[in-house]
């Protein structure tokens, strides 16, 4: 024991030993009378040095133990004679019956008065005792420091302060206890009164908080035993458990009451207030040690216990909070639930189901819009204003509008939940990802989402962007990307986007830098493979622009007389990058053995001239002319109509017509026609070789709408039939010089069911190849795999692009087995081996 080495042992000192004062009894007499004085608060005339010296001498005389016991005995006597009677007086029958037996009839006021008087008595006894014992401990400092600590006894202070616990708190109640079944000690009474006061405060009464705080301090200063172990404070061992149990009762009742009231909004605020109150109570009336524990009780009873009941409340539950944007309620709710459940499962579930329901509602609304044409017409101007329009056109336009409405609604919903996330949920990641998942779910449950999203972008870029500020454009771009993230069938989206983008680019309908920016963001989001085609398209357009300009220069230098009137703007498109319905129509014709459409001689010459120019630097390439994708500006002259002397018909009229390439080819035919002659549909088709459907549309546009009726149709009807005849409409008048004949396929529309099936079929074909490739890739690497493993790996590999159906994977595996890329290997479970 190294410390011993440093201890200075008292040395027997002759001049101390010899004096009569060194005897024990005289010294004790001094101390005993001083103890009495101290208890009587009459110590100010005593000399500390004198008393200290007395105890010092006793210790030097090796009578420390005796002194220790004498002091204890003195204090016990003092308690019995002076303190207990005072307390006993306070423990009246009344107090017992009110506090312990909860006698009926006692008013809160009366209970509080009696209780507080009792606690004050306890407090004052405690304070006296505490002060006295501190003074005694000071006087006996030498005893403490040498004798007591050497003998490992409880310190003199601990021993004497503990008397309060043994003789007061643990004192059985005297005569008054007769009416009790069980035996109670004063401590029970103290607890009961404190808890009663706390409950009164919870009910809104004003109580003496300071008093509670002081009693708490007392309980914190007293321990179960004189060893004074830190976790054996009476406050922690006796009061706190009772306090927590009583609080649990209190809050359980309160929760039931709130449940009966049936208003979640009130419940939230009430719970929030209670939590605050309890925290407050711990710091002002009780001990901060309890803060966390009482919070747990409140959380358990007021939040966890009936959380789902409150959340599900009609009219005030979480559903209604979300629907009515009750931000404050939701904020509180979030804070409360976060306290009790880090994963916030309850909130997550309701948020998710709300997102899904609202999402499905959007789809439902949309369906109604689709089917009840006249009623839903209010949504799309075309339908109401122009009922006379061909039904098919109106329906298509309406569908496009519906697509945009769908996207708008989805975005609005997304905004709503984003807003909730920032305002109420502290941008909680758990909740955000849950909401995102639900969005993704309902969006992908809707089988047209890919097309609608692409269509929305198309619509925004086509007409929305013009005249908009950078910020507005930014918003549109962001929206587009947000939606894109949700889509699972990205390959399908890619297909639609390619189609719509192709039309925009060829039609010169949007601003290149915005298109590029959007694609750049898509690339950042989905990777290179997703955008490579789009980028190829941009490149084609840019190269084509240069090419057209260079060709123009080339022609000017040649001074070619024949083509000087025709200005050629050309788009050279790489087949793979562009949507098949721009490029693919040609393929169909070739398959069908049909020749390219017949161009007028002037155009033919132009084509040849360009082709020659093009091949100068790029020998070996093949150019195919796609008439269905182009347009032409034609200047036409309508001569003065004979016999008309006034009005517009009396003069020669010059108009500029903007028509599709087909339109141009058709109109050229009428240049060679004499006045009054007409051409039949079949004649036109024979001369031009334009596919029937396209020809019907082209002729329709040139002969039906009054604004662009440059051809007269016989008979006059709303539809073009293959039996109709067409003639030059010499009577044609237009208010504007420039006339735009709506170019076919210029606006993007929602596909009808037929088209959609076609698109899906094509998409499935592509998917089949992609799945094939994935299977082969995996098998090449792994050599052997069971069916289940292979399926899982395929789904994993393709997750970024689409979600392949199991049946499709199975079919592709079968196919690969047939083509002998794979073979089956025997065993209990189906498995395959890769054949190199």
């Amino acid at each position: 024991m190294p410390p011993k080495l440093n201890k200075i042992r008292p040395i027997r000192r002759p001049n101390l030993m010899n004096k009569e004062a060194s005897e024990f009894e005289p010294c004790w007499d001094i101390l005993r009378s001083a103890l009495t004085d101290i208890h009587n608060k009459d110590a100010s005339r005593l000399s500390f040095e004198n008393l200290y010296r007395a105890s010092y001498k006793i210790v030097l005389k090796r009578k420390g133990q005796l002194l220790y016991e004498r002091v204890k005995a003195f204090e016990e006597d003092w308690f019995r004679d002076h303190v207990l009677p005072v307390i006993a007086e306070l423990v009246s029958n009344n107090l017992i019956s009110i506090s312990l037996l909860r006698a009926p009839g006692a008013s809160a006021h009366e209970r509080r008065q009696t209780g507080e008087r009792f606690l004050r008595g306890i407090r004052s006894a405690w304070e006296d005792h505490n002060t006295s014992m501190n003074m005694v401990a000071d006087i006996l400092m030498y005893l403490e420091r040498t004798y007591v600590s050497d003998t490992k006894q409880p310190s003199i202070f601990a021993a004497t302060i503990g008397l309060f616990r043994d003789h007061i708190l643990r004192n059985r109640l005297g005569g008054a206890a007769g009416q009790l079944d069980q035996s109670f000690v004063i401590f029970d009474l103290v607890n009961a009164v404190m808890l009663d006061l706390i409950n009164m405060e919870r009910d809104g009464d004003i109580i003496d908080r300071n008093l509670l705080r002081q009693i708490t301090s007392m309980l914190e200063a007293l321990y179960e035993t004189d060893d004074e172990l830190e976790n054996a404070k009476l406050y922690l061992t006796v009061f706190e458990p009772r306090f927590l149990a009583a609080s649990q009762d209190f809050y359980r009742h309160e929760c039931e009451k709130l449940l009966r009231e049936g208003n979640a909004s009130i419940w939230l605020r009430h719970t929030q207030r209670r939590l605050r109150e309890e925290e407050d109570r711990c710091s002002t009336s009780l001990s901060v040690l309890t803060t966390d524990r009482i919070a747990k009780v409140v959380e358990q009873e007021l939040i966890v216990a009936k959380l789902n009941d409150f959340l599900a409340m009609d009219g005030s539950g979480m559903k209604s909070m979300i629907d009515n944007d009750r931000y404050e309620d939701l904020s509180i709710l979030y804070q409360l639930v976060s306290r009790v459940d880090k994963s916030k499962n309850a909130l997550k579930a309701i948020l998710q189901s709300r997102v899904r329901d609202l999402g499905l509602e959007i789809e439902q609304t949309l369906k109604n819009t689709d089917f009840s044409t006249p009623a839903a017409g209010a949504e799309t101007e075309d339908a109401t204003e122009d009922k006379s329009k061909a039904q098919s056109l109106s329906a298509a336009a309406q569908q496009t509008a519906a697509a945009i409405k769908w996207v708008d609604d989805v975005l609005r919903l997304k905004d709503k939940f984003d807003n909730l996330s920032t305002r109420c949920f502290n941008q909680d990641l758990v909740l955000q990802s849950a909401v995102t998942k639900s969005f993704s779910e309902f969006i992908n449950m809707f089988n047209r989402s890919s097309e609608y999203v692409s269509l929305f972008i198309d619509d925004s870029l086509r007409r929305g962007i013009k005249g908009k500020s950078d910020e507005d454009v930014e918003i549109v771009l962001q929206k587009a990307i947000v939606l894109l993230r949700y889509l699972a069938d990205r390959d399908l989206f890619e297909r639609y986007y390619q189609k719509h983008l192709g039309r925009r680019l060829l039609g010169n309908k949007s601003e290149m830098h915005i298109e590029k920016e959007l694609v750049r963001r898509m690339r950042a989001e989905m990777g290179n493979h997703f955008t490579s085609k789009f980028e190829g398209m941009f490149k084609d357009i840019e190269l084509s622009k240069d090419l057209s300009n260079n060709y123009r220069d080339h022609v000017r230098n040649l001074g070619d007389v024949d083509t000087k009137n025709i200005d050629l703007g050309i788009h050279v498109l790489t087949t793979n990058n562009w949507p098949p319905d721009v490029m693919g129509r040609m393929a169909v014709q070739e398959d069908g053995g049909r020749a390219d459409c017949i161009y007028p001689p002037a155009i033919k010459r132009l084509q040849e001239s360009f082709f020659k120019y093009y091949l100068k630097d790029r020998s070996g390439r093949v150019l195919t002319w796609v008439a269905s994708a182009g347009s032409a500006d034609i200047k036409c002259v309508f001569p003065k109509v004979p016999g008309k002397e006034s009005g517009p018909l009396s003069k020669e009229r010059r108009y500029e017509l903007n028509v599709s390439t087909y339109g141009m080819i058709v109109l050229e035919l009428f240049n060679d026609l004499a006045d009054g002659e007409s051409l039949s549909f079949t004649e036109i088709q024979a001369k031009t070789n334009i596919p029937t459907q396209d020809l019907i549309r082209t002729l329709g546009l040139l002969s039906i709408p009054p604004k662009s009726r440059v051809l007269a149709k016989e008979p006059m009807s709303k539809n073009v039939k293959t039996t109709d005849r067409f003639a030059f409409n010499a009577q044609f008048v237009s208010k504007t010089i420039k006339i735009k004949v709506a170019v076919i396929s210029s606006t993007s529309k929602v596909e009808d069911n037929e088209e959609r099936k076609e698109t899906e079929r094509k998409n499935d074909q592509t998917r089949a190849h992609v799945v094939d490739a994935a299977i082969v890739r995996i098998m090449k690497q792994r050599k052997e795999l069971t069916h289940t493993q292979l399926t899982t790996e395929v789904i994993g590999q393709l997750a970024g692009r689409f979600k392949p159906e199991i049946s499709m994977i199975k079919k592709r595996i079968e196919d690969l087995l047939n083509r002998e890329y794979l073979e089956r290997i025997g065993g209990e479970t189906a498995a395959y081996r890769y054949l190199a």
Partner: protein
Amino acid sequence: MADSKYITLVSRDGFEFVVLREAALVSPTIKGMLRSQFIEARTGRCCFAEIDGVILEKVVDYFHYWYRNRDKEEVPDMEIPVELCLELLMAANYLNLEPATGLRDWT
């Protein structure tokens, strides 16, 4: 008086020493005297009935020596006349001066 910056220590043979209160508080005994409601606390005078002036003087020297050097790293030795050693040890024990607070330096 009780809150004065200085206190007075009185020896058995009547010598009085005025000491910086904060310096004297290094002794738990004196600290106890001054914090209770005893006469010493009221008057700021602590009488030591069994310590001689010559010893108390050295004790007071030590109080100030301790006070001056309490925050320092390099502390000069304090001169102790050999003939006072025993009695000083006795006094130090009485005043509850712990080895850690400097008693070790004395021995």
